């Protein structure tokens, strides 16, 4: 049986990890390659790198970061942030990424998903979907790091992206992100029922209990950043907790 996945996420800016400073056992907690190796050793199932560089110059360092991480990493690597074209995706794959996540650019031009899926296969084409609850119910897609509400129904967009070739959806609740209150569980359940592809829960998790709730709500994998970065808990601890609660994990 396929196991539930735990995906630590590194926010990287200009080649350095920017969230979390108290990571235990590392000489340099800001180095993405050191952090990646440490997470693999803890039992992480995949690693996600989100490039949050604001400048073109910073973006150029992303491929170099991917290359350095790939040299030490023996688990799958997803890279997202600022991917606007098939060429951008190709550069990251050539550097050693296994999957590339598209977000804002795919909302502006959905054919980007089709193009990446056709060129590299749907297992490479990951949709990062940021959603915010609507007052009247349901969720809408937000882009540009939450600055812009699109009016697009999040569940309808998930369906369209999958029909265009997206092989997996990283689903972030914009309402919960950074709140430490747990994932938006109804959003996970709705998306999980709407599409056949795996759903990765993101946004708001602060404890192993939150990860368990996300998986029970229908997520196939859980992405978390801060709960691991500050050294409060390890991937291994979280997996032990999930296993004790009846979730099958790789250990």
């Amino acid at each position, binding site marked *: *049986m*396929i*196991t539930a*996945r735990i995906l630590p996420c590194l926010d990287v800016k200009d080649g350095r990890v920017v969230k979390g400073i108290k990571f235990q056992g590392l000489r340099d907690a800001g180095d993405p390659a050191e952090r990646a190796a440490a997470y*693999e050793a803890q039992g992480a*199932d995949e690693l996600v790198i989100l490039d949050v560089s604001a400048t073109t110059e910073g973006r150029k360092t992303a491929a170099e970061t991917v*290359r350095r991480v*790939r*040299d*030490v990493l*023996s*688990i*799958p*690597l997803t890279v997202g942030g600022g991917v606007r074209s098939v060429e951008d995706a190709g550069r990251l*794959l*050539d*550097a*050693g*990424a*296994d999957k590339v996540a598209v977000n804002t650019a795919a909302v502006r031009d959905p054919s980007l998903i089709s193009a990446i899926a056709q060129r*590299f*296969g*749907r*297992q*490479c084409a990951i949709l990062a979907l940021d959603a915010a609850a609507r007052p009247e119910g349901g969720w809408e897609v937000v882009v540009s790091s939450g600055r812009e509400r699109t009016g697009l129904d999040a569940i309808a967009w998930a369906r369209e992206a999958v029909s265009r070739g997206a*092989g*997996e959806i990283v689903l972030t609740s914009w309402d919960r992100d950074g709140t430490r209150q747990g994932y938006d569980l109804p959003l996970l359940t709705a998306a999980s029922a709407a599409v*056949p*592809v*795996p759903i990765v829960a993101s946004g708001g998790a602060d404890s192993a209990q939150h990860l368990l709730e996300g998986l029970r709500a229908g997520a*196939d*994998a859980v992405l978390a950043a801060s709960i691991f970065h500050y050294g409060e808990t390890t991937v291994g601890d979280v997996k032990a907790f999930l296993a004790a609660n009846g979730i099958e994990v*790789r250990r």
Partner: protein
Amino acid sequence: MTKASPEITVVVTGVANLASVLAGWKRLGLATRVTEDPEDVERADFVELPGVGAFGAAMDRLRATGLDQALVRRVQSDRPTLAICVGLQVLCDASEESPGVAGLGLVPGTVQRFPDHVRIPQFGWNQVQNPAGGPIVDGYAYFANSYRLPLAPAGFAAATSDHGGAFVAAIWRGNMLACQFHPELSGAWGLGLLDRWVRGRTGKGGSP
């Protein structure tokens, strides 16, 4: 006399996570080179056929470059050959993914889509079980596939996993090993498999 470390020749299919595949061998300390020359692919000591993407696209590319016949001759003469993911699938007769497209026909059977009640693609770590002995030990492997060979083909040893029913995780015979999962992404377990496979072969064909 010390034996030179083996070199792995990786086939450029145009549709593979090539950088990731090469990095896996590098972590094992093995040299690699890439090629799309059919003669090279037929004769090299160790050949890996990686692959992601669609069955039809992969076969089109192999035919256009003449690599299809090179691979057939190589496997038929039992030179050490490792096929990964779609690389395994193209060894078969056909696939539901691309109706009407013939595979290499080295492994009998048709590749089929997973049943509708499970997540497709299968993305993630699944338990591999091998009662047969051989290169695979029980453990977790990383998969990324929508299609699979449901039954072990006659004449091959097989390890299995379960995703809406049992399916073929890997098959092997002589010096050929074909994995539906990605050993290069399967952590220490996957690297261990790659290492055992190379060390257990002579690289010259015939019996190891």
